[in-house]
């Protein structure tokens, strides 16, 4: 019996491990090998070519910075939009709660691509939305929104919004209401109760939401492809172009690794920082 109990966990881990090995670790190994080759398709040869990595950073630093700027801004806007919304759904929606949650998820019933293409129409030069922006002076009279960086950020915000809302909602929804009541009993104002009880307790949701938004947004290329222009391409577009039209697989592989490393570093720093924030919040409790 004991013997079997010891085996069961490994058995349960099996499918996931095999999946990761086959579709993550093995391709990663080949990508690493590829990133040290030189030449383009047709003349590839392995040569410990670390130059691919320095080239990746020196040739495409603009696109890297732009990617993180766009995805960072998109994450921030998502957070500012999502938190009040998730808060309302969790605490104030009453019988509308399920309907509102459904509304958050509903866009997923349409594919990512179609939703992004729809923004081409929404932000088109003659669209009512852009006319309105011109009216309030946010866009110059002869200016346009589509094919600019703003359109790319707008697309990112729209596409990744549910990934921010849902984790925040989940963590807010789990908060024991009695804790907030207790805070008020101890003479905390509503505002103080929010800042010192609700917000710290929802921190895990915020951390999860920002990661789920920031990571995929950094590597995204669809929004820049459809809503951006030549000056707004993100690092994902560069990788796509290197792989598919320039056939420079080593450069593309090296670039992918650099992107992965930077995202990993950013995430680790963030988690450390956000983790200690959450702890401080608990201390104050």
């Amino acid at each position, binding site marked *: 019996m004991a013997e079997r109990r010891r085996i069961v966990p490994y058995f349960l881990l099996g499918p996931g491990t095999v999946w990761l090995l086959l579709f993550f670790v*093995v*391709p990663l190994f*080949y*990508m690493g*090998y*590829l990133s040290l080759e030189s030449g*383009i*398709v*047709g*003349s*590839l*040869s392995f040569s410990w070519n670390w130059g691919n990595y320095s080239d990746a950073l020196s040739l495409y630093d*603009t*696109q890297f910075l732009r990617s993180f700027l766009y995805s960072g801004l998109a994450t921030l806007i998502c957070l500012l939009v999502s938190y009040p919304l998730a808060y309302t759904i969790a605490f104030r929606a009453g019988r509308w709660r399920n309907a509102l949650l459904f509304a958050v998820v509903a866009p997923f019933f349409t594919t990512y*691509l*179609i939703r992004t*293409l729809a923004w*081409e*129409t929404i932000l*088109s*030069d*003659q669209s009512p939305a852009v006319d309105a922006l011109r009216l309030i002076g946010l866009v110059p009279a*002869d*200016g*346009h929104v*589509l*094919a600019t960086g703003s359109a790319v950020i707008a697309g990112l915000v729209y596409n990744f919004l549910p990934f921010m809302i849902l984790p925040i909602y989940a963590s807010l929804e789990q908060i024991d209401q009695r804790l907030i009541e207790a805070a008020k009993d101890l003479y905390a104002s509503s505002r103080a109760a929010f800042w010192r009880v609700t917000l710290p307790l929802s921190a895990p949701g915020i951390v999860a939401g920002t990661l789920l938004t920031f990571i995929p947004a950094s590597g995204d290329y*669809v929004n820049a*492809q*459809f809503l*951006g*222009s*030549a*000056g707004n*391409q993100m690092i994902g*577009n*560069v990788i*796509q*172009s*290197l*792989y*598919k*039209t*320039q*056939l420079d*697989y080593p450069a593309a592989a090296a670039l992918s690794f650099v992107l992965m490393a930077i995202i990993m570093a950013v995430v680790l720093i963030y988690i450390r920082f956000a983790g200690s924030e959450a702890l401080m919040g608990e201390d104050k409790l």
Partner: protein
Amino acid sequence: MGSSGGATSRTGRLIGAMRQKRARALALALGVAALALGLAACGSGGGGSGGTVELEGEPSGKLTISNWPLYIDPGKEGTVKEFEKATGIDVKYIEDVNDNAEFFGKMQPLLEQGESGGRSVFVVTDWMAKKMHDLGYLQNLDKEGIPNVEKNLVSSLRNPGFDPNRDFSVPWQSGMGGVIVRTDLAPEVRSVCDLFDPKYKGKVDFLSELRETVPLVMTCEGVNPEEATEEDWMNSIEKIKGAVESGQIRRFTGNDYARDLTSGDAVAVIGWSGDAVQLQADNPNIEWRMPTEGCSLWSDNMVIPVGAPNPTAAEAWMNYVYQPQAAAKIAEYVNYVTPVEGVKQIFEKTEPELAESELIFPSAEFTAKCFTQAQLSEEEEQPVTRAWNAVLNG
């Protein structure tokens, strides 16, 4: 055809563009996987000819054709079905060529092994046909099997520079690159040079296809693209880069410029003749114009790769679509320049309007100033494409 389009249908353009992008994403994923599998088998390039097709008796069996999307009349009454009925050959027609370079990237590891992935016919643009031939990836054709091509190929396409005797390529469709304008919004645009007029700032699209856009811009500088040096290429790329930075160029497109023209987001673009014919059918304000400095001329060609199964059936297909009746059916749907003699006479009876179109049946005077789509030498190719992609991904 250019970087990101086959012909477009009257209805399927947007869906085509979307499908194309999605296909790219998928192909990227598959490409990485295929790469992992194929990595061990990488060798160095061959060279010269891939031999000559060997015909065997009556054509029969199975045939796989790779072509650009929306580049043939589809459906039960379509050319593929009629060919199957006429010959008993079982055709698998796949639309997996979205971009010459992409397609090359996908096929190259196989071709290097002397295999074609089961395909017997590819359709690729002139420069790619030459590149594949120079690498030894194509078979020479047995002219015995394609008498209709010998008989009906239009004279202007019989002796192109890259294949003077048409030894390994047979034109599928041809077309012209020039400007497409919204006559109501930018009536004065008559050449590629006019696209740099600040009046149209943020309202012009350029093609992302290097070999189409850059030579057309060269003509503005008084350079003949057929004799251009690497420096000429670089100068024109620099000029385009400036127009991107000043906000003059809205974006680079494949034939998804159709969307921008229709909505009026773009008032003039660099674009292809066949697309304009179709767009005009929906919106009479859209018009293709022969640039005052001349247009670019290109063909997409049927070729038979090394290792192609059933080359006999492949030649039977080429021969079949070179009957004027069959070619007319295709031309009526795709609206590009047909390479087959005798189609005009058929159209004069059935579609008199199309028969008169200079875009489908251009006269020698009409294309007098045009140049054949430029080739880059092996040494020029890498620096020029690199500079170009730096502009596209700025």
